[in-house]
């Protein structure tokens, strides 16, 4: 029973007078508010620490307007330094052997690929040596003797040389077909593929990332869905398969990508997810698409709006009409990825027949967290490859170039 006299009379000037219960209510509210805030903050921090892989990130760059001039390539030497690697040099023994070979053969013996793609200037042994020691040695991180018989540089008695030759043909063919035709704004430099673009200073570069360490970042580098470790159930459920088998993890190159072909309009809809009246039901395509997109985030270290207009992801232009060149370019690059997976990796010889299949290519393979791959080069005038009508290795399937997306005016 509340006593009448304890009930607070309206104070003059409406100044609050608190009784015990009011004080208790206010204190309760304040304590509750503070406790809730601490619990909520603590919860957020605890969850983020539990899923802490991404905290190592510097954060994705969100650049709403694409200005290629503002994007600097990370110098390859600097990139190696960050990984505690140094630029490989030919060994003293190899240099000595080369000097002997060069004196005996000032003109090249049995050089087939470089002369074909780069011109007759590469009939000079010194020229070839300069090219090799500039690109091959640092690119794969090995001295000459890794591939060459130092007594006879022209011989093919090491399997590594056979592989390197096939890889070199692939490099030039990919350059000619895909890189040279990339849609780009006026003035954007055209980089060249080199050994280092993929190998990044390691002969078997694929083993350089620990696939057994399934942090979020590591998984995403391999084209794996964002948001956490996929379980076996995830993979089975999504029906993502690679050559009929579930991959060890989500790959950007899956059966759907491998099976995609340009339609009558030259359009390749690898990532067609926005619905129209005829879109099949279900969100599986969207899940797959978002996994691939997150892979691109990590591989290039960019935010979504680097390529997309945030208001409508499908559009190639922003609301203001700015053309999103990176979206057009990444679409083109995915075509190259498909070409590598379908036409080139299956044809590459192996140094060890017991070695497993080549891993599937992905964006991280070259980009390594940068918009411009650290291992890409701006070529000198005599290092620009030319179109060859009779390549020694031909694509297995004819994969026409997708129709480029260009600004309308």
């Amino acid at each position, binding site marked *: *029973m*509340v006593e009448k006299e304890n*009930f*607070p009379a*309206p*104070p003059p000037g*409406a*100044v*609050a007078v*608190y009784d015990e*219960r*009011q004080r*208790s*209510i*206010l204190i*309760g*509210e304040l*304590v*509750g508010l503070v406790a809730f805030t601490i619990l909520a903050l603590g919860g957020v921090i605890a*969850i983020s620490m*539990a*899923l802490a892989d991404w905290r190592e990130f510097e954060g994705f760059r969100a650049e709403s307007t694409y200005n290629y001039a503002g994007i600097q390539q990370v110098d390859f030497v600097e990139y190696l330094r960050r990984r505690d690697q140094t630029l490989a040099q030919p060994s003293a023994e190899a240099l000595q052997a080369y000097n002997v070979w060069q004196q005996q053969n000032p003109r090249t013996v049995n050089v087939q690929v470089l002369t074909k793609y780069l011109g007759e200037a590469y009939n000079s042994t010194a020229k070839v040596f300069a090219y090799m020691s500039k690109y091959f040695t640092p690119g794969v991180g090995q001295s000459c003797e890794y591939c060459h018989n130092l007594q006879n540089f022209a011989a093919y008695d090491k399997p590594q040389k056979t592989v390197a030759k096939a890889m070199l043909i692939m490099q030039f063919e990919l350059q000619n077909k895909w890189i040279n035709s990339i849609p780009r704004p006026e003035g954007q430099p055209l980089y060249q593929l080199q050994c280092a673009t993929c190998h990044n200073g390691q002969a078997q570069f694929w083993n350089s990332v620990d696939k057994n360490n399934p942090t979020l970042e590591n998984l995403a580098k391999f084209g794996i869905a964002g*948001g*956490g*470790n996929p*379980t*076996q*159930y*995830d993979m*089975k*459920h*999504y*029906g993502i398969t690679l050559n009929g088998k579930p991959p060890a993890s989500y790959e950007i190159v899956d059966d759907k990508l491998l099976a995609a072909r340009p339609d009558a309009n030259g359009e390749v809809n690898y990532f067609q*997810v*926005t*619905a*129209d*009246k005829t*879109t*099949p*039901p*279900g*969100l*599986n395509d*969207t*899940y797959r*698409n*978002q996994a691939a997109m997150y892979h691109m985030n990590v591989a290039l270290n960019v935010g979504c709006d680097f390529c997309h*207009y945030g*208001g*409508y*992801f*499908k*559009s*190639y*232009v*922003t*609301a*203001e*009409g700015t053309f999103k060149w990176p979206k057009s370019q990444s679409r083109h690059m995915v075509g190259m990825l498909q070409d590598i997976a379908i036409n080139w990796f299956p044809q590459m010889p192996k140094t060890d027949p017991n070695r497993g299949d080549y891993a599937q290519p992905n964006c991280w393979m070259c980009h390594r967290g940068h918009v411009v791959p650290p291992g890409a080069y701006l070529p000198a005038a005599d290092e620009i490859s030319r179109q060859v009508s009779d390549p020694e290795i031909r694509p297995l399937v004819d994969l026409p170039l997708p129709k480029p997306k260009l600004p309308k005016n």
Partner: protein
Amino acid sequence: MATEVYRESFERRTKTVRYIRFLEGLADTQVGPIYLGMWGALALFSYLLCVFITAIGFGEQVGYNPIRFLRELPVLTLYPPPPSQGLRMAPLQEGGYWQLATLFLSLTLVFWTIRIWTRAVANGLRPMVPIAFSAALFLYAAIYIIHPIWVNSWNEAPPHGLRGILLWTNHFSVKYGNFYYNPFHMLSIYGLLGSTLILAMHGGTILATLAYGAHREIDEIEKSDEGTHRSQLLWRWVMGFNATAYSIHQWALGFATLTAVAGALGVLFSGPVEPNWYLWACRAGITPAVQAACAP
């Protein structure tokens, strides 16, 4: 006073009442009695089944390893069947768990609504709480049941899991153009912001009248020129008019149900009625700089 009288008569009728002094200031100190009843028992049973099925589904994904279960809990997800299954019953590990869990989750919500309804009627109250709750139930049904059936695929429904529900929210928006351009989503957000605004105004107003004993509601009603009158005068001064102690709750209920009902309509119309809300916004002329991005 009246409150105390009510408690006395209540205590005579039940022996399960407890008072927890610690709760003073946060809630009523009286805890219990709780009524289970048939619908409550059914709801509880159905909910436990749903949790059990989900736990089995999660457990299979981590090989029933408790450490892995805890570590991967935020990313463990029960997915609905793939699109190829349509509306069929799927094998357990390919969406069957999801179907069973969703079935029992839906039953739980229905039983719970009936439970509130019967308790309200038994208490002599209008069933406004279950009616309000059914708005949320409609949103749930639209997302998990009606929309998937309309587009003929359970795959359109959200998975069960912390990561899964977030991914679904994003993916559903991406698939249907951009959900922010969905006019029903706009309306739903309007309801959401409106109800938080109204709740804040109402809560602030009631707390402002503490000095006049507004927490002793019955005393406060009996005395004139107390908190209610002063707070109503406050709003007349501030915005020219005021809600009454009755109408403020109508406003709150209206805004809150608008949130759920408009959201449900937005989900239902995505696909069959309008597959791309961005292009709809282009046609409606409400996107900025219409000409640029509308014709990509």
